[in-house]
């Protein structure tokens, strides 16, 4: 499908392609995340649809040059709508042998392989487990290999600026970027602006990075090695103004927006944990939005501080990842018992225990739905993509205040760190969220803190309001009065009340939509961050003639009213999940339907191919 045109500005032909996937990989000190982010921003700005997948080691500094220290960033850009960062890569930039050996399997046959030749010395080769140099022994024959002396050429480019060798070498990622930018015909100005902003205080370093970037670009342009450039035209996205956004950014901004739209000051109580910490970092920057961020001494203090802040009338939120959510369990129970609105964000990572801190997984679903003592129902909703985190947060806060309950938001490491274009909303067009607090009682009437409205929701009375003095807590409450009660039948009644309140939310959420035929051979149902892979795989399967539909759940507790019906409309139901079958268990338990699982727990997202293969197998 590629067409060749000769560009005016360059001397080499440009081949137009619909999409491309590029991965930068190197040692974790090599600045690969920065390289990837720069290419992402530039691609977004020229109007491509994009999806990214940063992948980095848990060790901050594994020994240099080892496989454990390899850090990568993958970016997929296209002239059509895309949902995933791509299964395999068209071009791989490997800064050392360890990066090459750990990433090569993902490069398509005939793909472009750019390596830093200078890093292929004996020691590095050995660290990567090579006995000889793959650059010389013909093992890379299947690829278009470009072996570039990046270290030497970068040093040359920055000569005369008075930088130390170490400082000079730190510019290598800009050299690599320059080359990749040339290869895919990306303009340099976004990155040049970034350099100005970032290194403005060190003019020598800024100049060095600028020179390295240009040197890489010019290398592609000048050197005879590369026969052609590639071009990916802008995508036809929904008209509007866009920016690039990561899931954690979208979550933080969603919180700011929900706070604004409910006219309720935000309190974010948390304890740092990968991959959730960036939400805290982002919010801490925006104190002028009235955000109070509280870095507590641990997760238990984080959730209990949130309970105190919720009692006080704030929009109270905590965020963490699985291990931290485990610690918060008792406090969330108190939140459910006291029926105060609050949000609990779980940016899932590989588990159990400390597990795989920097890798993604979807194995905390049952923790969110059931992981507390007693009958402890809480709504659970999940974001499906980086930009979707924004909408999910607003929706979660709407439910929390309408139903006076903690609400779980599930995202995961993959969408939290990944990015995509986000159509910037007008703030005034965002849904407004109504928060009401009962006013003072001055005629001596007794305030009834556990009296309920038609949604079974109790009032949110805040301290400082005369006549509404009341005490809440973890002990069972008498219906209506809220007094402590050990009456067995009252307890059973209250257990039902709390359960019915949460179950009733089903009447307040949209019906489940299905992408594809309403009936048919196969339904693929998923939740959360697997959206992109499932949507792409199902569309491909349908394009190939399969009667396959895709249904992606945002609401996991309660589930949409029409879900049971949907599940019964297909011969087979496939449930792909990055766990051993947690949604399947819930579907089976709730609707009694037979399902087939596709399960992967490798700390990595699904590739489209994996899902496609399973679909084919089930359709056969």
């Amino acid at each position, binding site marked *: 499908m590629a067409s060749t045109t000769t560009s005016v500005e360059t001397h080499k032909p440009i081949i137009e392609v619909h999409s491309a996937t590029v991965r930068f990989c190197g040692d974790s000190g090599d600045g690969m995340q920065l390289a990837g982010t720069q290419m992402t921003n530039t691609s977004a700005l020229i109007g491509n649809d994009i999806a990214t997948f940063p992948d980095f080691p848990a060790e901050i500094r594994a020994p240099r040059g080892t496989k454990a220290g390899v850090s990568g960033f993958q970016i997929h850009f296209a002239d059509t709508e895309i949902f995933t960062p791509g299964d395999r890569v068209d071009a791989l930039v490997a800064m050392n042998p360890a990066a090459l050996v750990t990433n090569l399997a993902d490069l398509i046959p005939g793909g472009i392989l750019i390596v830093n030749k200078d890093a292929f010395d004996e020691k590095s080769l050995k660290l990567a487990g090579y006995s000889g140099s793959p650059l010389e022994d013909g093992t890379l024959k299947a690829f278009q290999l470009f072996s570039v002396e990046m270290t030497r050429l970068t040093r040359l480019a920055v000569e005369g600026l008075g930088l130390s060798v170490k400082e000079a070498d730190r510019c290598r990622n800009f050299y690599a970027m320059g080359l990749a930018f040339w290869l895919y015909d990306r303009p340099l100005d976004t990155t040049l602006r970034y350099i100005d902003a970032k290194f403005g205080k060190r003019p020598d370093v800024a100049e060095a990075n600028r020179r390295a970037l240009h040197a890489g670009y010019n290398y592609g342009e000048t050197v005879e090695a590369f026969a052609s450039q590639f071009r990916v035209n802008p995508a036809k996205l929904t*008209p509007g103004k866009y920016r690039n956004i990561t899931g954690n950014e979208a979550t933080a901004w969603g919180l*700011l927006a929900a706070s604004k739209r409910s006219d309720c000051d935000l309190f974010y109580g948390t304890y740092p944990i990968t991959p959730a910490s960036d939400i805290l970092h982002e919010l801490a920057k925006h104190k*002028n939005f009235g955000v109070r961020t509280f870095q507590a001494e641990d997760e238990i203090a984080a959730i209990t501080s949130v309970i105190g802040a919720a009692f006080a009338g704030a929009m109270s939120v905590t965020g963490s990842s699985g291990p931290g959510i485990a610690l918060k369990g008792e406090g969330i*129970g108190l939140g459910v018992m006291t029926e105060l609105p609050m949000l609990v964000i779980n940016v899932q990572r590989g588990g159990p225990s400390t597990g795989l801190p920097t890798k993604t997984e979807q194995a905390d679903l049952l923790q969110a739905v059931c992981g507390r003592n007693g009958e402890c129902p809480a709504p659970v909703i999940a974001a499906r993509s980086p930009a979707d985190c924004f909408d999910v947060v607003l929706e979660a806060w709407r439910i929390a205040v309408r139903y006076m309950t903690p609400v779980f938001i599930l995202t995961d490491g993959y969408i939290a760190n990944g990015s995509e274009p986000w159509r910037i909303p007008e703030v005034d067009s965002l849904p407004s969220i109504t928060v009401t607090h009962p006013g003072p009682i001055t005629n001596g009437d007794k305030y009834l803190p556990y009296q309920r409205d038609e949604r079974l929701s109790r009032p949110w009375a805040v301290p400082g309001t005369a006549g509404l003095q009341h005490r809440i*807590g973890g002990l069972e409450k008498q219906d209506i009065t809220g*007094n402590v009660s050990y009456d067995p039948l009252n307890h059973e009644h209250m257990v039902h009340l709390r359960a019915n309140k949460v179950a009733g939310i089903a009447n307040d959420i949209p019906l489940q939509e299905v992408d594809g035929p309403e009936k048919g051979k196969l339904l693929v149902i998923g939740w959360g961050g697997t959206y992109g892979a499932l949507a792409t795989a199902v569309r491909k399967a349908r394009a190939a003639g399969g009667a396959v539909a895709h249904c992606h759940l945002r609401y996991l507790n309660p589930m949409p009213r029409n879900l049971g019906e949907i599940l019964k409309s297909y011969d087979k139901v496939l449930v792909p999940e990055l766990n051993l079958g947690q949604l399947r268990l819930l579907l089976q338990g709730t609707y009694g339907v037979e399902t087939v699982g596709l399960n992967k727990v490798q700390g990595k997202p699904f590739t489209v191919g994996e899902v496609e293969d399973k679909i084919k197998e089930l359709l056969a």
Partner: protein
Amino acid sequence: MSTESALKVLTPGDFASDQDVRWCPGCGDYSILAQMKKVLAGIGAVRENTVFISGIGCSSRFPYYVDTYGIHSIHGRAPAVATGLKTVRPDLSVWVITGDGDGLSIGGNHLMHAIRRNLDMNIILFNNRIYGLTKGQYSPTSPLGKVTKSTPMGAIDNPLHPLSIAIGCEATFVARSIDVNIKHLEMVLHRAAEHRGTSFVEIYQNCNVFNDGAYNFATDRETKADTTLELEHGKPLIFGKDRNKGIRLHGMDPEVVELGKGISEDDLLFHDEKAPEPSLAYLLSRMRYPEFPEPIGVLRAVDAPRYEEMLNGQVAEAKKARGEGDLDKLFNSGDTWTVA
């Protein structure tokens, strides 16, 4: 908002809730509750602007018995709950009620951090040196060798000393009193309420069911003058039925001396609750019966910045420097592009 209660002068009775108090008859908690209600009335507290937050334990039932706002939270976490509340609502008067097990065992971490942050709140630790609610296990303040259901051969954990811990956490207000010493207790609670910053008060509390008489030495009419020492700012450390004994510094260590026989008041240690360095307060917190009389009263009361003021100050400062947050501006900042 609170027209009625702001105008009317409230009495201790006005702070009683409509709930039956369910402590064992004779429990020291009753006295503490009674003095607290007196203090609330005395300081002109407004019911709706007062919040009691507790953890779990007998003492932590306290919030149910006062007609204010309250949270009976979970075991050990009251200081953190209070932190969230106070940062959002600095205008409220916040009291944390905790026990020796609740505050020092499961909640030790939160207690430590609440104290060092110095939010303007009062932490009242009821120390009965036992777990009451769970029926008589030893607690972090039980002495070595203490025989309980969980330590039939005697406790082998070194006890913690709440005041020393508080001082180690840079507490700005540290005091101790005794449940049955009602005038003194009222005075200490009053001082705590007036302090701006976290006040930490340890109250010796008798659990007559599981640890009866743990503080007999300090409450016995016959001995208490010789076994306790009432601290007064600027006054020498004098004690004893005949006020003839004092504490003097011998090198770095305190020693008990008798007045007369060549020793005058001027040779004694003078109490300075406002000393910027907490060394004296720490030394006092280490004085233990039977070698020493145990000090009661205010060990330390100094002024320092408060967390909620600094946090809200940063919010205000950010608004001033950058203007009230504008979401549209934020969303449209940085690199954007338009699809037509």
